[in-house]
């Protein structure tokens, strides 16, 4: 049994069919690069996995359970985390609150009053998370909007890892980063693989894909065109698939 199995995924927006029957399998602890030209359907495919978009037809199973009809919150519970290209952080909220957004630990006064957010625990655990990722930020209590792009990317990753996911989807995590920050993100992906977390990495930067991934999947016009083991292919072959110039 594989960790994630997609079969026959279709999705249209009005008259435009973006996904035309996608099949994809991801094993536990595997790092898969998903590449393709603009408009190939990469982001749409990822959002059908995270649950932001419903599928028109097809089936998604995760860890043995069918999750096709679950909402994004339930899929997070099941262990799927997605890090969006725009990071989806709340800029005026502090670092710690962002990391725990949507899953705030709570406690009760005297066991009767309604649950209130355990801010001390949020701060402590957020700090531990940031430290374990080996990154530097000025303070976990400053608004996320005041951090650099690389630091914000780190916060988004920290948020994804806080609840021990089994699969993390990253949409162009390195596109807007400085060279040194890219290395730091790739290092984090390797660190995740060692901990058995599977990753799907969407990227235009084939360099980064080849550095981080075990397998490269090429998407073109809503179909999976090819699925290549990294050590049996090279960048030239992947590019030829992307631009439809193979053989």
């Amino acid at each position, binding site marked *: 049994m594989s960790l994630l199995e997609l079969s026959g995924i279709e999705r249209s927006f009005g008259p435009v069919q973006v996904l035309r029957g996608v099949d994809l399998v991801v094993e536990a602890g595997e790092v898969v690069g998903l590449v393709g030209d603009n408009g190939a359907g990469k982001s749409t495919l990822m959002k059908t996995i*995270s649950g932001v978009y419903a599928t028109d037809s097809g089936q998604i199973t995760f860890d043995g359970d069918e999750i096709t009809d679950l909402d994004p919150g339930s899929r997070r519970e099941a262990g799927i985390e997605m890090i969006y290209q725009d990071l989806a952080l709340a800029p*005026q909220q502090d670092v710690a609150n962002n990391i725990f957004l949507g899953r705030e630990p709570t406690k009760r006064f005297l066991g009767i009053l309604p649950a209130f957010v355990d801010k001390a625990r949020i701060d402590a655990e957020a700090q531990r998370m940031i430290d374990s990722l080996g990154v530097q930020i000025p303070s976990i209590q400053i608004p996320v909007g005041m951090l650099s792009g690389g630091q914000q990317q780190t916060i988004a990753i920290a948020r994804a890892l806080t609840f021990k996911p089994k699969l993390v989807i990253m949409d162009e995590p390195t596109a807007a980063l400085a060279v040194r920050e890219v290395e730091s993100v790739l290092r984090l992906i390797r660190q995740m693989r060692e901990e058995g977390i599977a990753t799907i990495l969407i990227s235009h930067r084939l360099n980064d894909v080849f550095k981080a991934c075990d397998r490269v999947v090429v998407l073109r016009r809503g179909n999976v065109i090819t699925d290549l083991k990294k050590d049996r292919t090279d960048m030239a072959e992947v590019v030829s698939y992307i631009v439809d110039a193979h053989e």
Partner: protein
Amino acid sequence: MLRFLERTHVRVESLAVLAALAIVMAILSPVTGSGVRVFLTASNLFNIILASATFGILAIGATFVISAAGIDLSLGSVLGLASVAGASLVVTLEFPWYFAIIGSLAAGAAAGAVNGFVVTRGAVPAFIVTLGMLGIARGLALIISDGRGIYGLPAEILFLGQARPWGVPTPVFIFAAVALVSHYVLAHTPFGHHTLALGDNEDSARATGINVNRQRMALYTIAGLMAGIAGLVFTARVNTGDPTAGLNYELLAITAAIIGGTNLFGGRGSILGTMIGALIMGVLQNGLNLMAVQAYYQQMAIGTVLIAAVWLDQIRARGRRAQ
């Protein structure tokens, strides 16, 4: 103290404005027979809090909605509808006294729920929905009451508006209780965190699994409920279910929330700040009254304060971006 203000998102500036305004009003207000400035007499200070309580409760409702990047222009009209709904049940239809409470709160919450429903299901901008509700609620209030005030409420209801347990007017206790619960909800519960996140970045809220529609629905209903509570307090204070109650109060409520530090574009909101904002509006109105400034000019003053507060906020935001 400063750390407490920072944690609760209260602006030091708004406290300073309140203090400065109070000093100015004290100096400019007339002197009583016993040589005390009228503004500073205990009864006048209670008057300020008493007047602030009604639109302060409304401003708390506005704070919830604006924190989530929404807006509610119908608050004043819904206050009027709630006032009439409660009074007519008890006076006209002769239900037991507590139906004034049930009727006011239910009418307010229902109007808020309708706002929330149309905003979330119909994807109609909140500005339009609540502007429409401003007309609908006021019209309904006038229809129910036949355009006249409904007088003669039972003593139990008048207690809520006119009694002074331990020398403090009951509405002040109600305002304080509502503010305390609201502060707790907005600042310390997951619901409050989700509200601010929704106002800050809706995609972020959705992506982390927050049910954005349910959240909005709840927020507009809370705002309506606050208008219901304010309507009840108004009815009790003036012993009338008044269809014109709360006219233009949305201006006061939104201004109080904004000058209290709530971000008009969402993502930041503070109930304690809103209370200070409401007191600023109360002091301004009261001081102008004491100086015998016509009500017409007061409207202008309040409108100017609202625009100035948002303008200052924009300048500040630009400064932050330029850093």
